[in-house]
Every structure is written in structure tokens, then in C-alpha cells.
């Protein structure tokens, strides 16, 4: 195996329980987003575009779809003879089965994967976020600062700061304090869950953490605090641009709606930083003579005979005559009948919405359409 300067470890085992039925059968990184993509496409494309060609993807929760989606990584040009994508599920050893109990334990259990490449640096990523970022620039920064660990940070609204890991730094951006989800945050600079470790430090601290029976084996809660305690050089790397954790139905809906906003920084049309995905290979979308399409994002394979207003439609969706889809997200291959009205909702893939159905929220909440609803017990239906 060739030596690699930097290897990425992508944590993709998240359950995303606040996405409710959307993550019943698939891990959060596999949730569809943006009319064509799955959430993990953004991180994998960032790796490919940043010149990182060796990526370990750590899976645990509902991995079937994610595994087959990633395949050998060819969609992201990561099918390489040396390196490329390797899916790393938890495994059994002679003595026990080792589930990934925390982010740090997941990496610790795959130190042998990393050792094969003798990396100088390890980039730790999460497959849960929507953003475009050049990891190469972050690595240059890490090297320039002679840091042991570099953590990327983003400014978040003060009101939300207590949901994140919050960093306090000195003027040189050296991290002096790291608080995981503080009740009273001292500032609003949040960790994006992206770390670059120098290899020796990572190995040393993960081995130490693994021996500590009191540890919860989490980077934010355990590893970073003990590094700070021992006065290691931790630097913050400020990121500017679009970054969204689509952990809830509402934030997933919002992130999709952001794509319809001209002010949004997330440009899917930038040919210099393409977001790759597994291509469904469907014919062009067909917009019928009766159809009306207003300010929407529509993927190939759709057949539109109704009205689409400020919505995001994934591949293979069909919308029947007289139907109105407003401010909604319709996931792959959903079939919307005739004279249906859908407003502020997420319709999951393969759903079949019968003729005349009305799906509308009474209290401005975003509706996630479920099988139970479609069987007629939900008040949003007439």
C-alpha cells in the first residue's frame, strides 16, 4: 500500500433519529437531498474535489443502502487502485464484537486501516452535513500553524450555539477552551465536526482514550478536552459559506428551500466544484402543456402535468393533472395523483399519493408524509 499524506475518515453511522420515518430504514447520510443527491454526496465530493483519494467510510446504523450506494466509489471518482473508498463496518474480534460506541472509538477500531497508508495527517469528517469545503486549504493551514489538531469552526446564531461544540480561542485562533453543547455559551463559534489530526497525536490519544473506562469515546466530549488539558496545539480554522446540519425534518426542508433562493451560497451549478452522485440514468423531465412550473428545482425522469411552485422534485416523480405542489420536497419516484394539493411537506421516495388528497399543515409545521398518514388517520387530510 502506498504512503498517503492525508487519509479521510468519514463517520456515516448516524441514526438521525429526529428525521423520524425518513431514517427508519437508512442512515442519515443516505437521506435524499437537493433533488438528486444524498447527504453524504457533499462530503464525498468535497474529498474528491480537494484531492483526497483515500476515504474510509464508517458505517453502523442501517448500512445496507449506504453500502450499496457508495459501492466502489466510482460516482465520486474514488475507485482507485491505491486508496479509494473503503467501507468500514464494526467487526468482531476473537474476544468480542466491537460496536462503535462513540466517534473516537469508531476511529480507534480502524487504526489498522489507517496504519496501512502511514498517513501524516488524518481528516475526520461527518457525513451528516451539507456544505462545500476545500479540505486541502484546511490541511495547508494545519501545517502552517504546526498544529496537533485543527478544528473547523463556523459562526452560528447565538440562539443555536448551545446545540454545538463551542470553541474559545486566543487572537491567533489557538483554541483555549472547548465546550460540548454548553448551556451558556461564551461565544457563537461552533465546531463543524471536521478535524485534522497529525497522525502521531491521533494514535496516541485514541489509544489512551480506549484504555480509559470512564470515557464515552467521543471526540468533542473526551478526546479534545484531554488534548487541551495537556496543552497540545489546537487551532481553529474559520469557515465561511453555506453549512447546514439537516438533523430535523424542518432543517432538511429548509436546506432544500435554500436551493431555490438566489442569495444562497450553496451553488450546485459551479462546474469547478461539482457535487457528484450516483446517476439514476433517467430521461429528461417532461413538462406537459397543462403544467405550470414556478421557481423550482426539478430532476430528470419527472413527468409534470400539474403546478409546481417553489418546490424540489427528485428523479422519477410524476405529478398528475390539476395537482398543486407548493413549498414541498418530493423524493424519488413518488407518484402524485390528480387534483392533489401538497403544501409545506416532505413526501418520501416511492410514496403514492391518491387523487384528490390534500396535505397541508395547520400550524406552519413541516409535514413529513408517512404510510400511516396515507392510510387516512391524520388530520391534515381531508
Amino acid at each position: 500500500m502506498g504512503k498517503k499524506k492525508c487519509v479521510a475518515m468519514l463517520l456515516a453511522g448516524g441514526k438521525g433519529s429526529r428525521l423520524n420515518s425518513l431514517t427508519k430504514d437508512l442512515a442519515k447520510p443516505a437521506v435524499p437531498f437537493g433533488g438528486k443527491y444524498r447527504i453524504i454526496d457533499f462530503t464525498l465530493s468535497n474529498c474528491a474535489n480537494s484531492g483526497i483519494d483515500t476515504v474510509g467510510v464508517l458505517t453502523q446504523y442501517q448500512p445496507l443502502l449506504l453500502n450499496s450506494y457508495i459501492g466502489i466509489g466510482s460516482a465520486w471518482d474514488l475507485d482507485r487502485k491505491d486508496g479509494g473508498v473503503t467501507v468500514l463496518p464494526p467487526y468482531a474480534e476473537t474476544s468480542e464484537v466491537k460496536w462503535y460506541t462513540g466517534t473516537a472509538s469508531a476511529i480507534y477500531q480502524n487504526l489498522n486501516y489507517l496504519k496501512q497508508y502511514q498517513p501524516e495527517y488524518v481528516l475526520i469528517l461527518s457525513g451528516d452535513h451539507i456544505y462545500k469545503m476545500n479540505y486541502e486549504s484546511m490541511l495547508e493551514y494545519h501545517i502552517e500553524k504546526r498544529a496537533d489538531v485543527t478544528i473547523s469552526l463556523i459562526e452560528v446564531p447565538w440562539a443555536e450555539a448551545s446545540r454545538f461544540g463551542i470553541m474559545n480561542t486566543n487572537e491567533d485562533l489557538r483554541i483555549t477552551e472547548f465546550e460540548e453543547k454548553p448551556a451558556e455559551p461564551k461565544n457563537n463559534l461552533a465546531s463543524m465536526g471536521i478535524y485534522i489530526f497529525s497522525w502521531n497525536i491521533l494514535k496516541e490519544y485514541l489509544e489512551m482514550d480506549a484504555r480509559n473506562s470512564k470515557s464515552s469515546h467521543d471526540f468533542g466530549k473526551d478526546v479534545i478536552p484531554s488534548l487541551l488539558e495537556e496543552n497540545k496545539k489546537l487551532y481553529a480554522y474559520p469557515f465561511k459559506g453555506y453549512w447546514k446540519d439537516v438533523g430535523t425534518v424542518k432543517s432538511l426542508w429548509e436546506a432544500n428551500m435554500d436551493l431555490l433562493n438566489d442569495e444562497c451560497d450553496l451553488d450546485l451549478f459551479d462546474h469547478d466544484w461539482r457535487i457528484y452522485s450516483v446517476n439514476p440514468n433517467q430521461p429528461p423531465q417532461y413538462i406537459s402543456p397543462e403544467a405550470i412550473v414556478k421557481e423550482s428545482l426539478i430532476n430528470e425522469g419527472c413527468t409534470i402535468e400539474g403546478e409546481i411552485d417553489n418546490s424540489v422534485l427528485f428523479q422519477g416523480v410524476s405529478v398528475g393533472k390539476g395537482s398543486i405542489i407548493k413549498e414541498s420536497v418530493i423524493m424519488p419516484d413518488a407518484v402524485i395523483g390528480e387534483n392533489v394539493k401538497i403544501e409545506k411537506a416532505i413526501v418520501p421516495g416511492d410514496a403514492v399519493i391518491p387523487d384528490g388528497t390534500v396535505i397541508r399543515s395547520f400550524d406552519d409545521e413541516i409535514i413529513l408524509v408517512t404510510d400511516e398518514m396515507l392510510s387516512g388517520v391524520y388530520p391534515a387530510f381531508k
Partner: protein
Amino acid sequence: MKRKLLGVIDATTYHDDLEELLTHRSLAALPFAGRYRIIDFVLSNMVNSGISSVAIFPKMMYRSLMDHLGSGKNWDLNRKRDGLFFFPTPVVDSDINKIGSFENFAANLDFFYRSSQEYSIITNCYTVFNMNFKPLLDWHIHSGCDITEIYHENGTPMEMYLVKTSLLIKLIETRNETGYTCMRDVVLDPEHNHSICRYDYSGYAVMINSIENYFSTSLNLLNSDVWKQLFIKEQPILTKVKDEPPTRYLKGSAVQNAMIANGCLINGTVENSIISRGVKIGKGAVIKNCIIMQKCVIEDNCYLDSVILDKDVKVEAGTILTGTARDPFVVRKGTKQGALMNS
């Protein structure tokens, strides 16, 4: 089926009536239906029918065709055994413009010897159709015929032939003695001593051979009865993948009766048109009865009716271009159209 039928696509054809669209590419690579090249139809049909070995015989200007096909990966033809084979003909100056030229095959006779498939299907590269060849092969084997010629049920020969590979090799080897230059010569010769059968195909099929018929066949795709026969979920037409985002409809866009590929940004009005991948249409622009190929940019307030824009054409703001259904206005690849030139 897998090891039974060999696919042979003759991609040497050139139609003078399509000249304006073929200055940079071979007929096989002619863009069609917003995201395909014409050869995708027959090639996908072969793959969907379980054919795992396909030989393509191109002639001249095959750069765009090779770029499109690559290793055959998009058709699942990048195989260790069998797969996609590309045999540019060494006979550059021949004026043979017939499907299945034995002279072209002869230069690569070893390929036919080496192929283990018992039967071969020889096709043209410019038919728009979605046909499963499995029933045809069964029919051919059952009939005991030497050569089966495929006809459309409306009586048009489709320039596709099914033969035993051993007979094909024999026909190629004896071409000088028999005087047969291609499959068509064999079936048309009243003196031939082969049993020849006719297989009628009843599905949708159009052979593209002129600008007028390219234009009308393209716009016919907007008829849902037609596209439903071409784009079948179980038998998808495969093509080169482009990683374009979904198409975005912006404020002021009005689109009706159109087929639109991915990666477009639409600000204007589109009616009865086919829009390919990565096209930008400016504010106030009106596109009617048009075929717009990949990556064209149509700036604000243009008016285009019955126009074919080849790839990478830029139409400057306020330009008016009009053609007719019989004689569409064709703009060549990579050119720029200004308001002053054609107003």
C-alpha cells in the same frame, strides 16, 4: 443469451442531408432527446437484451463518439471478458455507405473468429427505438432461416440483420467471389442461395437521415405516446453520465410542453421544445419549437422559433432567429449569434 448473440453496430454512415450537424461529429454521435447520442438507442437495446459483446465500426471524425462511449462503463460494457470493441475502419477513401460493409468487417475478421457468440446482429447506428432483441433471436432460431432481416411493420426495412456468426464470417471471406459488399447486397440478390426471412417490428422506430426528419422526430418526443414507447423503466436508454444538478426554474420562467435535461437554468419562456443538459435561458427570452443542444447560452430577450442550436452556441441578447418546420434554422456548434447579424 449472454454468450449467444454478438452485437455489431455499423457507425460509418454519413447522411449528406444532415451535413450541418455533422461537421464536427459522426452520425452515431448526433445528440438527441436532450441527453442522448443517437447510438445510445441501439447500444442500450443490445445491452438490455443481454448482449455482452458489442463491436462498433466507425469511420472518420469519431473523436466525439469515442469520448462518449469511453470504456463502455455507462452501458456496463467495461468487462474483463467481452465488452465494447471499437474498430475504426482503415479504409478511409471508400465510398461505401451501406450498412454492414464487409470490407470494413474484413479488416477485423479476427474479432469475429475470436467471438464465441453463435449469432450476430448487424445494425445501423441511427435508429431511434427501444426494442428487445431476445424475441427476435428466439424467432430466428425457431424459423431456421439463414438470415433474418428486420422490417418495420409499416414495410420499411430497418437495416438490421441477424445471422449465424459463422455465416457472417463466410460472407465476409467470400466477398470478392460473390460480389456482395454488404448484408443488403445479399438479401437483394435474387440469385442468392440462403434462406432469408423477414421479421416485423411493430414498436416505435425512426431512422434519422435528414435535418427535417431529425427536427420532426425530436419534437415528436413531446407526444407522450411516443416518449412512453422510447423511455421504458425496465429497458432504460443508457448514456454518458454528466453529474449536472437538477434543472432550476427561476422567477419569470414559463415552460410548457417541453422536454428538459438536467443542469439548465431557465429564466424565460419555453414551448414545444427539447432543451439539453446545461443550457442557460435568459430573462424574457422565448424559445418555441426548438432543439437546443448541450451548454448553449441564450441571453435575455431573444426570440427563437423553429431553430436547432448545436452544442455550445451563444445567442446574444435580443437576437431573433426563426425557421420553419420543414426548414429549421440551424446554428453550427460553438458559434455566436448576435442581434445585428440576423435582425
